[in-house]
């Protein structure tokens, strides 16, 4: 396919009439035909000019065999600039099929349908990739995938193991509904984060849903200061990437963090505690309903309250962190942000205002989003940002190096995010538009370990557990009825049979579940099979087990034999898709369609001939079911590559 590059200033191809205004006195009423023609020509000319601009900046026609990838934005300038400087070749641009499956999974967590693939590949539009991106960014499924991402980030779950006060099912569900709604309204990340830091009231109420983030900060088995610390650790780690506060809240950096962080080494325990002090007026009050233990709708809920007074007191002798003792005459710390600003007014609001304007806010989210799409962060692990090693204009003293693989890129990405109102969709759009993101994951001639931090190719990722489940559902068309629980077990009288516990309206998609304990109900009955399947694919529990992409024997056993999520769905009798597929009389075309549906591509010559040959060995319907099973168990089914 030919390269299509248009310089921005090609005005000469615009029709000359465009510069001519309609003649004096020419209005629709005086001469409709001329008016309309003139308007039409104007429209055409503007449209042509805009299209050319779009093609130059956003279209991704596949480059010729050895042509360098087109640099579409600042991401490409940085990535390809560095590759050129290191004399390393980038991979080719991904094929249309590779790109489509990847971008569907990466943006909305679903595989494309066979028709989506066929239309996309067949389209000659030079801006087809940008159109697909636009469609995906605005799809409702976006809110599900990124709602799950955000809740992974903050660790939202019904009962975190380290906590004294917990969100419980009601708080978890409220938060889950809230974040998905925030995303659907395209709200800035600063606004979303601000709400999670500053809201209060009873955590079960939907209008107080964001307050459940504060409830997550409750630390069990220790004094209140442990809770203030935990709230700071969660905020700083999730929202600023400053995971080292967890270390500093036990001890100063000196003699501890010299191997890890320049900034942290200079940090003192009291600095960190002054940050935590922003939370020292938060009270998490157990709601004790007057009627007694069980059965009350608010049983186990928490009132998040800001006390009028209180400080971070240095007077603890037990708990999860070393004893806190006065520093000279200082016994009660008041909040001070890490830049020295003393908090006034409501301390949580003061903290939230500083945090969302902290330069690390943008850098943190830019870095984390980069990792979502590129597989490794520009700084990795993503919660170890070191503010003293991020500025290319102020590099740290030797032997320290700048922390990011591409320091200028990280800053530019952060600036882009902030300049675009910290809008998640805008950030994702610009990442995904880049040629760097669209590189193939295949590399020739020989891949070397040193190329890894250069992002010279795309790195495949195994689908998330929810994506695996949902891909099987989408491909087969067999829609399970998954429901999650609506009230916590102690709100319901103990004798209630589990199956009659209040549950959500059923949905077919695992990506809609509020946490890793769900769905507890399958087709209306309590059933753990789907949860077991998802656990096998290492969904994690947002608490003691992190989400992971690694493989396992149990995953393979599930894909081959699971008699709830897999095997029933590949039976023609159950699958609307396979029923339709069976109507295709030509075996080769049938195999093509099956591959497009499950694997988002046509079969290779070898795959096709082997698959078609199978029809000679068994009954036709058996062959179809066998091949559907093979498709789900193919290695490439599991990957976004």
């Amino acid at each position, binding site marked *: 396919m030919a390269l299509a590059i248009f310089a921005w200033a090609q005005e000469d191809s615009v029709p000359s009439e465009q510069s001519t205004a309609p003649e004096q006195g020419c209005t629709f009423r005086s001469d409709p035909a001329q008016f309309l023609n003139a308007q039409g020509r104007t429209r055409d000319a503007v449209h042509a000019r805009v299209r050319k601009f779009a093609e130059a900046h956003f279209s991704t026609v596949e480059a010729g065999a050895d042509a360098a990838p087109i640099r579409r934005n600042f991401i490409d300038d940085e990535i390809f600039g560095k590759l050129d400087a290191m004399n390393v070749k980038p991979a080719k641009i991904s094929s249309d099929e590779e790109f489509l499956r990847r971008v569907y999974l990466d943006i909305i967590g679903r595989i494309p349908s066979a028709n989506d693939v066929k239309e996309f590949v067949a389209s000659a539009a030079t801006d087809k990739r940008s159109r697909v991106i636009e469609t995906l960014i605005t799809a409702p499924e976006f809110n599900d995938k990124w709602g799950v991402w955000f809740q992974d980030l903050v660790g939202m779950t019904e009962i975190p*193991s*380290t906590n*004294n006060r917990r969100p419980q099912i009601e708080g978890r569900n409220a938060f889950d509904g809230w974040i998905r709604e925030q995303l659907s309204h395209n709200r800035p990340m600063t606004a979303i984060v601000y709400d999670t830091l500053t809201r209060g009231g009873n955590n079960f109420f939907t209008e107080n849903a964001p307050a459940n983030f504060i409830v997550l900060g409750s630390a*069990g088995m220790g004094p209140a200061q442990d809770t203030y610390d*935990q709230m700071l650790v969660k905020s700083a780690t999730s929202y600023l990437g400053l*995971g080292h506060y967890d*270390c500093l809240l*036990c001890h100063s950096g000196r003699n501890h963090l010299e*191997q*890890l962080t320049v900034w942290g080494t200079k940090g003192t325990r009291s600095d960190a505690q002054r940050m935590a002090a922003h939370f020292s007026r938060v009270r998490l009050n157990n709601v004790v309903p007057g009627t007694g233990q069980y059965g009350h709708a608010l049983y186990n809920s928490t009132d998040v309250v800001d006390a009028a007074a209180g400080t971070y007191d240095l007077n603890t002798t037990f708990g*999860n962190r*070393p004893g806190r003792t006065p520093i000279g005459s200082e016994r009660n710390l008041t909040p001070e942000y890490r830049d020295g600003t003393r908090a006034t007014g409501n301390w949580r609001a003061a903290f939230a205002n500083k945090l969302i304007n902290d330069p690390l806010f943008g850098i943190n989210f830019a870095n984390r989003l980069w*990792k979502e799409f590129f*597989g*490794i*962060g520009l700084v*990795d*692990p*993503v919660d*170890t940002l070191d503010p003293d090693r991020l500025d290319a204009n102020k590099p740290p003293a030797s032997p320290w*190096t700048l922390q990011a*693989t591409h320091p200028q890129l990280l800053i530019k990405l952060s600036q882009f995010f902030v300049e675009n109102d910290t809008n998640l969709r805008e950030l994702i759009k610009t990442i995904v538009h880049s040629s760097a993101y669209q590189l193939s994951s*295949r590399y020739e001639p020989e*891949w070397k*370990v*040193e190329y*890894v*931090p250069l992002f010279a190719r795309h*790195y*495949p*990722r*195994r689908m998330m557990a929810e994506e695996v489940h949902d891909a099987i559902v989408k491909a087969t068309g067999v829609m399970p009825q998954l429901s999650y629980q609506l009230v916590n077990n102690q709100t319901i009288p103990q004798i209630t049979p589990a199956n009659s516990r209040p549950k959500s309206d059923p949905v077919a998609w695992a990506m809609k579940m509020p946490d*890793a304990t769900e769905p507890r109900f399958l087709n209306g009955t309590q059933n753990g099979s789907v949860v077991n399947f998802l656990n096998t694919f*290492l969904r994690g*529990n947002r*608490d*003691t*087990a992190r989400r*992971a*992409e*690694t*493989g*396992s*024997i149990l995953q*393979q*056993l599930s894909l*081959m*034999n*699971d*008699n709830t999520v897999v095997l029933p769905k590949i039976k023609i009798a159950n699958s609307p898709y396979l029923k339709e597929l069976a109507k295709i009389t030509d075996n080769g075309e049938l195999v093509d369609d099956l591959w497009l549906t499950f694997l988002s591509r046509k079969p290779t010559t*070898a795959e096709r001939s*082997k*698959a078609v040959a199978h029809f000679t060995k068994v009954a036709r319907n058996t062959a179809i079911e*066998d091949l559907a*099973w*093979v498709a789900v*168990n*193919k*290695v*490439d089914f599991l990957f976004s590559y």
Partner: protein
Amino acid sequence: MRDRFGIDWSNIKGSHFWARPQLSRRLFFRHCASAVGGYFLMPSRPLETVAKAAVSPIGTAKNVIFILMAGGPSHCDTFDLKEGVWTPSFMAPTSYGDLRWPQGIMPLLGEQLDHIALLRSTKSWAAVHELSRTWIQIGRNPISGLAKIAPHIGSVVSLELGLGRKATLPAFVSLNTGSGPDQGYLTPDHSPFYVNPNGNGIGNASHADGQGVFDRRFNLLQDIDAENRSGASELGGAVDEVASFNLSARKLMYNPDVNRIFTFDAAQRALYGTTAFGNACITARNLLRANLGTRFIQITMGGWDMHQNIYTPNAGLQNLTRQFDSGLAPLIADLKTDGLLDETLIIAMGEFGRTTGSPNGQAGRDHFLQQAVLVAGAKIRGKRAIGATDEAARATSEPGWSAERDIRVEDVEATIYSALGVDWTTVRYDDPLGRGFEYVPTNQGVQYAPIHELWS
């Protein structure tokens, strides 16, 4: 070419720091090529471990059976029996030498006391279920910074004693455990292999449409997907890893050796009490008999959280101890007969103990930090207790061991490693936090240590 840390990767073969690799080189490069898990890709320090002190692990055991009594069993009614007006007659307290034992509710284990020692000066850190349960499985405070990456004790055992892909079965098997701590930052080879044994094989290890259909499909898969499974996929190491797990999974299916372990009939189940716990004990015995690579077996048994009606006959405590007794006693006996008991360390503990003295207002017992642990096997000296508590088992009156303080879960952890011949003071420097991962953490100057008195 030097990476950004100045490490020259072009000459790896001769570098000395590979002398004691903790990741096999192959696995390391696999991860690099796959770009799965960011921190593996940019190592910043040599992969070596440093022993903190010269220690002599006991080294009598090859295997561990770790019984997690989820919910927190009442210690003053079980392993640290204290009698009072509340003690129901069915408990039938009996003396075995110096040991007072509830013969009435655990008669079979009463006959095995020669092989059993009780740690009565044990104290939990936290009376919170999820927190403490996680704590005893990873051997450190789950709130600590390091807990984010900490592996389950079983995963460390898999790392130290596992045979890797050469073994048919994973080194760490977890029975009747819903979910819990995994292998942390260690590679997925060391993840727990979850099974809920019912005597009918491993779940998902047989094909609903029958072996004939399965074999046909499996062969078709290997044929059609051959390009991806040659071991050098263009897509990188993550893909090769999937293919490798697939073959390992296949080996577990329709495998007579594996079936022998997980398939047992009603008669066999009856010998162990016909309970989920009993089935897990049978499975543990079979796993060790078969010797197919499993070294650490966790059995999770829930229901011990008896806030109400603990002494109701045939319910509450009596019900659960009957299951426990009828499962664990024949396990110990069978291992003894097989000659495996001497090389298997058995630990049974909950996440904490329960309140002592008179029961609470609902005739039950609540969370309590003092607890007691049962230890058996690995050539320990049995029929005695280490440590003692006051007249109600409220607090330790005598620690009973050289550290002269309460026994903590970290000490139990150290004991497990020592029994297996593993240096419990090991610190690994391949962790992603770059801080150093200690097998047994230190805590504000307290040095945790194995309870070697068990063997003397």
